[in-house]
């Protein structure tokens, strides 16, 4: 059953790979490729954050700290020239995971709103350190001087086309990983913690450790997004780790939907699309974006993907009234968990 699900996801990823590789062939415009890389980097940020917000119920306001730590660690390692790009990649993720472990160990004890504020505080502390530690990070100018792009296992990253392929592959690998996490027994433990932490505790789940694990995993995947962004922009900037980035990631999740796995990605496409195109056609892109968010909140009352999912689920239910009880989507999983 589980193997079948994995194969299903693998086929879906292969199909996505095909589509993403064909797009630049059909539409060779460089801006489209750049746009997709943007969506990939921020999509990873939003998707990994949704592991915390949507699946675990931890509203982190400091997730971009790990995006920034990945970008900075990678940039600094590459500029030092001491290690190969593969080692730099791995070390940056490990560094971010360690940072997430330390911050998470302090934060996940706290309740909802205090957790949000504390993650925000740590993120801004990290941001301040970047600004202050000028010799290492370049301060508010960012990590200047470019980041070298040597070959990654024989893949030439200097050419725009192969760099694009590289980003797409890394992105899909991360998504598959996230999917495996959310569909694993551990993923359902996280859902249970979100819905009823006390019950999880009574069933012998170490809630603290599960939350901390989710926090570290999410931070690591966010750092991959940061690394791709650093490679793409050929530098790292303090704004990567500013709280507004975390805010944007939350808006991507809210716009796209948090119950459907790919919802945050849809949000990333919509938000980045609005940012790119609204600035082209109007000076007042804040006005446009604000009104769209307003319609989402007051009109759909949930993310776009969630809305679509519930709409179609509702129609299916209307056609086959006998199947109605199956609609309580998350219930069976909790029961499944309690047997384990």
């Amino acid at each position, binding site marked *: 059953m589980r193997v079948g699900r994995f194969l299903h996801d693998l086929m879906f990823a292969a199909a996505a790979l095909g589509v993403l590789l064909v797009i630049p062939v059909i539409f060779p415009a460089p801006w489209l490729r750049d746009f997709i890389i943007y969506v990939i980097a921020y999509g990873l940020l939003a998707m990994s954050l949704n592991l915390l917000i949507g699946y675990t119920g931890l509203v982190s306001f400091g997730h971009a700290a790990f995006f920034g730590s990945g970008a900075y660690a990678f940039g600094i390692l590459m500029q030092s020239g001491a290690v190969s790009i593969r080692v730099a990649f791995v070390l940056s993720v490990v560094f971010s995971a360690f940072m997430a472990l330390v911050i998470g160990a302090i934060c996940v004890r706290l309740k909802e709103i205090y957790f949000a504020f504390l993650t925000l505080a740590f993120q801004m502390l990290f941001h301040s350190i970047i600004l202050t530690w000028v010799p290492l990070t370049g301060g508010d100018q960012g990590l200047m001087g470019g980041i070298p792009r040597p070959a990654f296992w024989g893949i030439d990253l200097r050419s725009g086309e192969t760099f694009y392929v590289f980003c797409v592959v890394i992105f899909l690998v991360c998504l598959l990983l996230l999917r495996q996490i959310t569909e694993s027994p551990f993923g359902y433990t996280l859902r249970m913690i979100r819905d009823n932490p006390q019950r999880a505790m009574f069933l012998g789940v170490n809630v603290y450790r599960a939350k901390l694990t989710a926090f570290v995993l999410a931070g690591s995947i966010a750092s991959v997004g940061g690394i791709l962004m650093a490679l793409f922009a050929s530098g790292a900037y303090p704004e990567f780790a500013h709280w507004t980035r975390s805010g944007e990631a939350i808006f991507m999740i809210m716009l796209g939907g948090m119950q459907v796995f790919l919802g945050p990605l849809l949000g990333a496409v919509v938000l980045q699309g609005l940012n790119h195109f609204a600035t082209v056609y109007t000076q*007042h892109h804040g006005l446009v974006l*604000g*009104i769209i968010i307003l319609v989402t909140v007051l009109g759909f009352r949930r993310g776009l993907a969630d809305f679509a999912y519930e709409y179609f689920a509702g129609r299916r239910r209307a056609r086959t009234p006998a199947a109605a009880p199956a609609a309580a989507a998350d219930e069976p999983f909790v029961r499944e968990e309690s047997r384990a």
Partner: protein
Amino acid sequence: MDLTALAGCLATPACAITQVSSGLIIGIFLFLVASGLSLIFGVLGVINFAHGAFYMLGAYFAYSGYLATGSFLVAILCGALGMAVFGAIFERLFISRIYGRDILMQLLLCYAFVLILDDLVKIIWGAGYRNMGMPPTFARPPVFVAGGPIPVYYLFVIGVAVTVGGALWYVIARTRFGKTVRAAAINPQMVAALGINTPLLFATVFAIGSLLAGLAGALAAPVRTLTPGMGLSILIESFIVTVIGGMGSIFGAFVAALLIGLTRTLGSIGFPLFVDGVMFTMMALVLVLKPSGLFGREV
């Protein structure tokens, strides 16, 4: 880091007085914004992410009022009362639709208004910097205390803020209205069942919170540069203030605001790059050691 410069400044009365008084002024503006934020959160359970934008609007309303009439009193009334009306309408039309909903939805709604209001300000008043200038009443030589100059306007602002803060505390803690508000914060259904018009009560509370932000903006207009987006930095600092002081505590907001104001001015001499770092460290410490804040009650 230049801690000797900081020590040197604190040792000279003139420098110390100047820095402390400008720190107090920053603290006062923060207190007014944060107490409104805290009040709205304490009673309605809504984190008004648009509160910084309200501060900005208050400043622009005051600016327009001042340009139109030339009277500073009218300017302050425009900023404060204008925002009170705006807040009441905002609560009725939008915030009231999302009570009890996911906290992220509230955040998103408020953020939408941050974007919209920033752009509306750009459309109406232009994207450039605006300066209101000091009203003639206060354009007089500063008062010297121990050799350090304190602008007369600062004394006026401190006086207004202390009066308003005291009045707010009195109304919430001592009057019948305040009692109703506190009851509604704990159990709105019960208060409604007792025949009190809770929608009106909520709109009033939201209006008072907005009035405080508008007042802060209006008072800040003569001494600050007006730009669209000026609300964002004060918003994040008022979050720090409410967290340190304790959500829902007016007195806590006062103490924490002055603390942050002083950190800002004294820090800009001693550790100019790490001022934010110190503020966020204080916030993190309070959250770890006493999540409910220095003067807050457990939520």
